[in-house]
C-alpha cells in the first residue's frame, strides 16, 4: 500500500497528566511525532473485569500494546502472610471465583506436599469432580464474555443458562454457588452422597444437550468464525517463548497439560485426551476450550461411575466436622519451600509456600495465576492486528483481570 505523508502537526493531548499513564512522556511524544496514535482501551470496557490497554496504532494496525494491569490487585500475597494456613483457603479462591475449586486445590496440595498427607481415593475423586465442574464453568463463562465482546447477546445468554446447572451442581455438592472452600488439607469437608452424585451425573447430560444448541447458535456460527479465524495468531515458537499457558498454549500446538505432565488427584486413573490445535488463532483458542468441556464432562461421569468407597478425609487429619478449628488452626509446615502446579481452567497455576517451620502463617506465599502468565503472549498476539480485532482477541484469551492481578 502506498503511504502519503501529510504535514499536519499533531500534538499529544494536553491533559496527558490526568490520564495517569504508566509510560514516560517521551514515549507519547515519540508516538505522535511518528504519525502514530495511542488509543487507550479501558479500564471501563465491555468485558469482564478491568484493565487498560495502551495501544499504539499506525493507521488502524496495532504496533505495540502496553498493558496497564492492577485494577483488581487485591494484595492476596501480602494478606496471606498474615493469616493462618486454613484461613487462606477462602482467600486464594477469590482471584478466580468461577474457578474456585482449582485454586483451592492448588493451595491445599502445597500444604499436603509439605506435611506428607496421603489423600484417600474417594476424596481425590470428589476433588476431581469439583475441579472439572469449575473448569466447565469457567470455559462457559469465557465463552459468554467472548460473545459479549463480539456483540453476540444470545451467545452470552446460552452459556450462562448452562452455567446455572454448574452452579446448581456445586450448590448440591458443597453448599455454595461459587466459592465453596470445600477442599481442605487431607480431603474434603464432607462426604457427598449417592443421590447428589446421581444428580450431577444427570446434569452432565443436560449440559451436553444444551451445548448442542449453543454450538448451532454460536460456536459454528459463520459470523463468529469470521471474527475469530486468523486473528491474533501465536505460533508454536512464540507461545513457548512468551510462556503462554493452558488451553492457549495447546491451541498453538504444544501438548502440555499439568494434569498429564505431573498428574495429581484422580487424573491418572481416568481416560481422557489432551485437546490441542495447530492454528494458534482466536478460533483455535476458543475451540480447544469448547472441546475441553466435553472431555471434562466425560471425566466427571467416569469419576461418578467409578467412585471408590472409603473415607473423605485422610486419617492423619481425622474427622473434621465440628472440630474444624481444632484440627486446622495450628498447622505449622516444616521449614522449606513447596511448589505445586495445577491445571486451572485458564492454564497453569503455580503456588509456592515458603515456611519458616515455626509460625502457623505462611512466611511467603506466591501465586502465579494463569492470566498473569499468558498476559505477555496476549500482548504479542495483538501486534500487527487491526484495532477492530482487539476485542475478538481479548475475548479469545478469556483474560480475567481479577485472576491475573490477584
Amino acid at each position, binding site marked *: 500500500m502506498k503511504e502519503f505523508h501529510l504535514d499536519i502537526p499533531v500534538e499529544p493531548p494536553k491533559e496527558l497528566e490526568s490520564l495517569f499513564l504508566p509510560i514516560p512522556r517521551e514515549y507519547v511524544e515519540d508516538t505522535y511525532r511518528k504519525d502514530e496514535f495511542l488509543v487507550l482501551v479501558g479500564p471501563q470496557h465491555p468485558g*469482564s473485569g478491568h484493565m487498560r490497554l495502551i495501544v499504539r496504532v499506525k493507521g488502524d494496525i496495532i504496533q505495540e500494546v502496553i498493558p496497564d494491569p492492577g485494577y483488581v490487585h487485591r494484595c492476596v500475597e501480602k494478606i496471606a502472610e498474615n493469616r493462618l494456613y486454613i484461613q487462606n483457603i477462602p482467600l486464594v479462591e*477469590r482471584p478466580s471465583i468461577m474457578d474456585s475449586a482449582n485454586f483451592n486445590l492448588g493451595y491445599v496440595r502445597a500444604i499436603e506436599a509439605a506435611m506428607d498427607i496421603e489423600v484417600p481415593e474417594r476424596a481425590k475423586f470428589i476433588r476431581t469432580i469439583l475441579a472439572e465442574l469449575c473448569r466447565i464453568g469457567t470455559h462457559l463463562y469465557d465463552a459468554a464474555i467472548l460473545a459479549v465482546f463480539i456483540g453476540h447477546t444470545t451467545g452470552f445468554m446460552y452459556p450462562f443458562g448452562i452455567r446455572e446447572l454448574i452452579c446448581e451442581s456445586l450448590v448440591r455438592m458443597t453448599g455454595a454457588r461459587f466459592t465453596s472452600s470445600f477442599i481442605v488439607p487431607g480431603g474434603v469437608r464432607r462426604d457427598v452422597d449417592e443421590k447428589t452424585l446421581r444428580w450431577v451425573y444427570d446434569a452432565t447430560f443436560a449440559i451436553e444437550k444444551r451445548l448442542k444448541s449453543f454450538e448451532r447458535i454460536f460456536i459454528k456460527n459463520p459470523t463468529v468464525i469470521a471474527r475469530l479465524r486468523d486473528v491474533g495468531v501465536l505460533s508454536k515458537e512464540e507461545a513457548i517463548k512468551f510462556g503462554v499457558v493452558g488451553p492457549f498454549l495447546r491451541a498453538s500446538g504444544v501438548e502440555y497439560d499439568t494434569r498429564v505432565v505431573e498428574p495429581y488427584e484422580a487424573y491418572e486413573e481416568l481416560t481422557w485426551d489432551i485437546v490441542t490445535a495447530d492454528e494458534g488463532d482466536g478460533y483455535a483458542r476458543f475451540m480447544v476450550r469448547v472441546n475441553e468441556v466435553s472431555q471434562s464432562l466425560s471425566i466427571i461421569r467416569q469419576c461418578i461411575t467409578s467412585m471408590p468407597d472409603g473415607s473423605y478425609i485422610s486419617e492423619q487429619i481425622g474427622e473434621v466436622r465440628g472440630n474444624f478449628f481444632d484440627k486446622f488452626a495450628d498447622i505449622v509446615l516444616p521449614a522449606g519451600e513447596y511448589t505445586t502446579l495445577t491445571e486451572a481452567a485458564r492454564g497453569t497455576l503455580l503456588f509456592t509456600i515458603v515456611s519458616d517451620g515455626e509460625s502457623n502463617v505462611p512466611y511467603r506465599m506466591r501465586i502465579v495465576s494463569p492470566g498473569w502468565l499468558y498476559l505477555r503472549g496476549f500482548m504479542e498476539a495483538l501486534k500487527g492486528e487491526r484495532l477492530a480485532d482487539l476485542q475478538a482477541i481479548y475475548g479469545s484469551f478469556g483474560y480475567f483481570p481479577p485472576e491475573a492481578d490477584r
Partner: protein
Amino acid sequence: MEEFTKFVRGGILGPIKKWGTKWSLWPVHLVTACCGAELAHAFACGYDGERIGALNYGIARQTNLIIVEGAITRKMARVLRITWEQMPDPKFVIVMGACGLNGGIFWNGYNLVKPSEVVPVEFFIPGCPPTPEALLRGIRQLQIKLDKGVAENSVSFSEVKAEKGKKPRILPRGVKKVSLAPCIVIAREKEVEWELGKNLCEKLKVLGRAVITARNRIALKVDPDKLRSSAMKLRDLGFDHVKSVNVVDAPNEGKFIVEYWISSYSVKELMPVLINLHSEISRREPKISSLSDIFPSADYLEREMQDLFGVEFVGNPWKGRFLLAPDAPEAPLRKDFKLQEEVYVGD
C-alpha cells in the same frame, strides 16, 4: 444548568422522568471484581434482570446507576469517580459484596478503598458473593425508593434470644504464632527416587549448589553475577520459559532471595521438571540482573516483583510502577511493611 435540573426533576415533567428512570435503571458495566460473575448471572437467562428494566450497558453517558461489584482498588477508585461524574442526573450507586461494604476478606489489604468514600452509595448488598436474587432485590429496592422517596431496608431479622442452659462456646482466640527470628531455607534436600533429577543435578553442579527438593523440583543456588550465565546454560539444556519469579524477604539476614522457576515446553522429558534458580542479594542494595532477554516470559513477572519488593532488575527496560497504583505504598511485600492486625473477640 441548575435551573434546568430543577425543572426536570420537579416541574410538570417530574413524574414522567421519575417513572422513566424507575423502569430503565440500566447499570453501567463496571465489573470491578469477582462479584461480577454473579451480576452476569443476574442479567442472564436464569434470573433475567431485564424483567425489572435493568440491563448492563456499556457507556456511562446513558446510564443512571453504577453497580459496584465488590472490591475497589486504588487504581479503580479513580475510574469509579470518573464514571460517576460522567453519568447524567439522577445518579445512583449500589454496592454489592462484602468487599465494597467494608473490605470483606481483603479488609486489611494495602490496595483497597471503600467505595462509600469515593461516591455516595444508595444501597449495600452484603454477601460474598451475593446471590443474583439479592442483587435483583437491591435494584427493586432502588425502584421503591424512587417511588416513595425514602430508602428502606429490604430485610429485617427477628431478634433471637440467647438460649439458657447451653454451654457457651469457647470463642477462638488469636492463635497466630509468628516466629520472631525466622530462618528461611529454600533448598532442603529430600531423598526421592528420581533418576532424571539426579542426572540433571550432576550436570548443574558446575553452576552452583544443586539439590533435589522434591520429586520434579530442583533448587539451584548461584551467585548473583553468575545468574545470567546459569540461565543461558539452562536454556541450552532445553529449558525455555519461566513460570514464576519470586522474591523472599529475609530481613534478619539482611538479604533478598530472588528465585526464577524455570521449566520446559519443548523437551518432553523436561516438561515436569521445575528448576528453582535462585540467588541471594543484599537488602541494602537490592539489584540483580534481569533475565527478561533470555526468557521473555519473565518480563512481566520481574516488573511485578520490582513493584512489590522494590528489587531492581537491571536490564529490564520497564521503569516505574506496573501493577500498583501511583498512590499505593512503596514495596508493600517487604516484611517491614505491616498490615493492620485483626482483633479476636476472646482477646
